[in-house]
């Protein structure tokens, strides 16, 4: 089944819930309406000729400052001050958050990138942990870094960061805390630079 066929099948079944399609041999991609994500995922897994039985990886993306023309805002957010610390974020972030799922069928060998975009103010999306168990930990990791709420997740806790960590580090407007449990973190942004 080619990626066009997969797209046509999904379009026929879900109509306006399929927002965008991008061909390409390396990475066919389909963007989905977040409210229908679970239905689409179940359909992709259970149809015999689609049979996407493996979810390879789940990744969150913060689209704040992303610019197709190559003039993103994020470089200002990520800039270093002269003393090695990260400069404060001046503008409030407005961009969407996104979740990306890479799927593969072990039987047919075809691949698909499934993506959703959700508003920053209410980052909620249905959990796919009951569709592919891989999503259990993948979504916990995405929650950990982006604060995206996965509705219906069996055990949504932080996975890599400490339980009492505050904030969502991979969001573009994240501000590094100055202390964590009396350990000063100033002067130690995400790359440690020694002052000479």
């Amino acid at each position, binding site marked *: 089944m080619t990626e066009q066929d997969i797209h046509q099948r999904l379009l026929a079944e879900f109509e306006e819930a399929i927002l965008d399609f991008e061909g390409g041999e390396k990475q066919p991609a389909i963007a989905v309406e977040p409210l229908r994500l679970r239905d689409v995922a179940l359909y992709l897994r259970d149809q015999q000729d689609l049979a996407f039985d493996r979810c390879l990886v789940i990744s969150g993306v913060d689209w704040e400052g992303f610019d*197709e023309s190559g003039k993103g805002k994020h470089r200002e957010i990520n800039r270093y001050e002269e003393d090695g610390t990260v400069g404060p974020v001046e503008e409030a972030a407005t961009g969407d958050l996104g979740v990306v799922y890479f799927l593969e069928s072990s039987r047919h060998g075809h691949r698909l990138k499934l993506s959703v975009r959700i508003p920053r103010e209410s980052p909620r999306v249905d959990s796919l942990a009951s569709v592919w168990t891989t999503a259990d930990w993948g979504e916990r990791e995405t929650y950990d870094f982006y604060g995206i709420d996965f509705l219906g997740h069996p055990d949504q806790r932080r996975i890599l960061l400490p339980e009492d960590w505050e904030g969502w580090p991979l969001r573009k407007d994240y501000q590094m805390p100055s202390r964590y449990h009396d350990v000063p973190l100033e002067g130690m942004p*995400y790359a440690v630079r020694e002052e000479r």
Partner: protein
Amino acid sequence: MNDTSAPLRHLPATREGDAAKPIKSELLHINMGPQHPSTHGVLRLFITTDGEVVHNVTPYIGYLHRCAEKIAEGNSYHQYIVYTDRMDYLAAMNCNWGYCLAVEELLRAGGMEFEIPEYAEYIRVIIGELNRIASHLIAFGTYGLDIGAMTPFFHALREREAILNIFEKVCGARLMYSYYDIGGVKWDLPDDALEEIKIFLDLFPDKLKEYDELLTGNKIFVERTANVGVVDAATCQDYGCTGPVLRGAGVSWDLRRNDTYSIYDRFDFDIPVGKGLVGTVGDCWDRYWVRMQEMEQSSRIIQQAVERLPARGECMAEMPKNLKAAPGELYTRTESPKGELGFYIVSDGGPVPFRCKTRSPAFHNLHVIVKAGQGQMISDLCATIGSLDLVLGEIDR
């Protein structure tokens, strides 16, 4: 948590005629790790046990977390290579390779034209496969330690030492290499490196036989690993297990063959899969055995690559110093010794990646312990963890 219906197959019945009612004792909550020697690093398992039988396993990870993905967003494509070393520190070359390949593919998708010299591709294969052997040697050695066999570890480290000596000659480092670069490899092989590799290849088959005599057919080892920690193929697919764990379950899936990259399509090698030779397909012994067979196949690949190595030439493509990928995104994957190592990179045209996500194979391989650990004895749990070949540096990133 307090599911008492989990199989209690190891517990005897209370008295005759009461077989349906096994002894129940109070459930005990135990922390295993993060300093437990058999967890291969800082892994903490919270286990609920009924006597010796494990009811529930909950892994706690993140003790080695460095938020490498955040670091990636603040560093240029070249600067991030050194951080990939520190993910899977036992197979740093393969991590470098995975990342460099991901950036190269992203650049190509963005319309940049360059060709990696064939000479460099051969070097990449030779060095990458040597590192695969080194990583599997550690897996083999430490697995023996987990089970209680001390000797294999010393034998394994002796051969790994030979590989590390070669790496030291090639790039000056013994653990954190950063030898692969975007567009090729950083330096040419030194004059005597090929000789050393050939000597190693001559000696290695005998060593493999030695390992087999030491451990593979050892009765105690087989008793400890056969039929223990069985993970079937469907579970592997569901939990996203890859690499030797998936192949141990009898699935012939190797990205070097199934989604070939670099020049792997030119070499002749087999993909060993678990057959359940001493127990069930997908048990600890099968995963161990697949790694042993893979070492043999890796040395076959190196042998062919060394024979066909083209005449010395450039080992780097012409690349701009300041890399900027055109806006776009791509997920690229390679077969690392632990499984499918993938990098998902989003570029917005700037000098740093907009997003750089690592798909860590050991992260997903560890997840399966939640299922495989249920109903086991505690000592079998140790055997199962060892057979998954976890590296916490890669899980925690």
